[in-house]
């Protein structure tokens, strides 16, 4: 099986050096594109590949780039930002890419910047990712010294300045417009859209924000072509995906697998199945802000549309397993505590609704809840649903809650009936 994201990585956990990356064919896609393709050619190839955003939303990457105005009168500079602010609960996939092969991200960024005509690029990295920071700094130095960054890359007239921004925390920085405010040195409050960042982003200039894993897919697409890339996926969606599993499984970890691999294959074959004495009760398929799926969904293909039809989202592709000895109410309470804490406070439904939600869940978990609280929680899932808030934080927070209320109703009611947590 082909593994364009991780295939070159060393087994010992050390980052690939520039020499090792080049020996494995690294930067050959960049050479090919800079010498024989236009930026538009790169966009067309990526559009044809059907590469969809790996940060969680699944927006087609080539289409996103094509919204950047390219006329002579369009504002300059244009910016490309790699979103390396991986903070979704349960997500650890971008860290593996940053640590294992930082040059893959750099090559993907240079190619993407060339495609959209960006002159300046940033990597927006969360502050706690200390080892990725060291490895990226080294890779940027190596690439700069080799003429792969800076003025006249590989002797062409394409130039790109690339900087590393170390973030000072807060989940909301992962939201693309919150990220842009943070990059500008401000509070990371999301911006209302339109205008979209592609037209008016960082410092009011055209800007594209792409997830790390999305960008890491670009070199393979340019090198081997859109058709090859589409052939990597097992169903509708193209390419490979880093799938991760955490929770009470025998071998938690992350693996690069074809898009469309089944949930069962990921959980049983790769993660080794449940730990002894634990049974599968549910799974959050794409991080903390996705709806629960049930054991009956195990044979489902993990791709954007299939997971969407089942009522959840592929999200980050990092699965969190709920076992039968963990209280689902407690788990959702933990998630809503997180979201309430991480709300930026800008818009009312999120700022006031999430702490309220957290309080109701605390009451139920501690045995003080009533059946009326359950209908109030259901109301909240509607009041904070899509379209009611400036950004996707609150709607994301409602996803595990609304599905837990549906699938684990009996657990909620038992807490209320017995006036205690039955899992304690």
């Amino acid at each position, binding site marked *: 099986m082909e593994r364009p994201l991780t295939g070159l990585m060393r087994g010992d956990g050390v980052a690939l050096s520039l020499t090792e990356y080049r020996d494995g064919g690294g930067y050959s896609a960049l050479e090919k594109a800079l010498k024989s393709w236009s930026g538009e050619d790169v966009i067309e190839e990526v559009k044809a590949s059907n590469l969809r955003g790996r940060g969680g939303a699944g927006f087609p990457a080539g289409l996103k780039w094509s919204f950047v105005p390219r006329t002579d009168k369009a504002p300059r500079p244009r910016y490309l930002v790699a979103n390396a602010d991986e903070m979704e609960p*349960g997500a*650890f996939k971008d860290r593996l890419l940053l640590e294992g092969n930082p040059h893959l991200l750099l090559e993907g960024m240079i190619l993407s910047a060339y495609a959209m005509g960006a002159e300046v690029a940033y990597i927006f990295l969360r502050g*706690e990712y200390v080892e990725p920071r060291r490895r990226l700094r080294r890779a940027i130095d190596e690439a700069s010294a080799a003429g792969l960054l800076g003025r006249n890359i590989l002797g062409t007239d394409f130039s790109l300045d690339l900087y590393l921004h170390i*973030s000072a925390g807060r989940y909301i920085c992962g939201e693309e417009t919150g990220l842009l405010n*943070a990059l500008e040195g401000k509070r990371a409050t999301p911006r209302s859209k339109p205008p979209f960042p592609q037209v008016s982003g960082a410092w009011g200039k055209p800007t594209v924000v792409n997830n790390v894993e999305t960008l890491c897919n670009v070199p393979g697409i340019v090198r081997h072509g859109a058709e090859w890339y589409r052939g990597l996926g097992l169903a509708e969606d193209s390419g490979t995906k880093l799938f991760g599993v955490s929770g009470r499984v025998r071998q938690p970890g992350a693996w690069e697998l074809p898009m469309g691999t089944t949930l069962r294959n990921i959980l049983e074959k790769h993660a080794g199945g449940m730990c002894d004495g634990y049974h599968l009760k549910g799974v959050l398929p794409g991080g903390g802000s996705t709806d629960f799926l049930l054991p009956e969904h195990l044979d489902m293909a993990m791709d954007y549309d299939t997971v969407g039809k089942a009522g959840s989202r592929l999200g980050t592709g990092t699965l969190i397993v709920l076992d039968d000895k963990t209280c689902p109410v407690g788990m959702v309470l933990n998630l809503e505590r*997180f979201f309430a804490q991480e709300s930026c406070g800008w818009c009312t439904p999120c700022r006031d609704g999430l702490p309220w939600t957290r309080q109701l869940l605390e009451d139920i978990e501690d045995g003080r809840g009533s059946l009326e609280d359950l209908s109030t929680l259901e109301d909240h899932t509607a009041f904070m649903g899509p379209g009611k808030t400036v950004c996707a934080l609150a709607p994301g927070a409602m996803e595990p809650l609304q599905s837990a209320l549906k699938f684990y109703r009996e657990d909620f009611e038992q807490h209320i009936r017995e006036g205690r947590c039955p899992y304690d």
Partner: protein
Amino acid sequence: MAEFIARDRNWALDYLTDAERDEIEAEAACYPRRDSLAIEALRVVQNHRGWVSDDSVAAIADYLGMGAAQVDAVATFYNLIFREPVGKKVILLCNSVVCWMQGCERLRAHIGERLGIDYGETTGDGEYTLLPITCLGDCDHAPALMIGDDHHHDLDTKELDRILATRED
């Protein structure tokens, strides 16, 4: 609320050390605007002084040509900027969902027993401060925490004792 005393740029230049100013200026080339350096400047000062005092906020503001309230609005937004004194080593204990399922509350209780501190508290000798942190991206090795710049994985109370003992040597 913090109260910021109006001073002049010379005071700010005097307050910030050469090393701090050099490190802030090293970042200046990466951003098109001076006020975009606010987060970088807060981090630089915190790296040197351990935390960000009212005077530090005022000095950064004067140095970057910003209002002190503007800088403080930024400083108080970000959880990795400390607006109160912290211990020499900050323990960031992940309390997000996977670490919660796999025992972060046991670690919190154990730190309470061993060091006598809970979230937001500093040991009497000024060595450690304990803070909760959102998902550290170590979910495949939960539960996890950071001490200073180091991530520690697959923790139980015994392993935590071993790590703390090593760091005290």
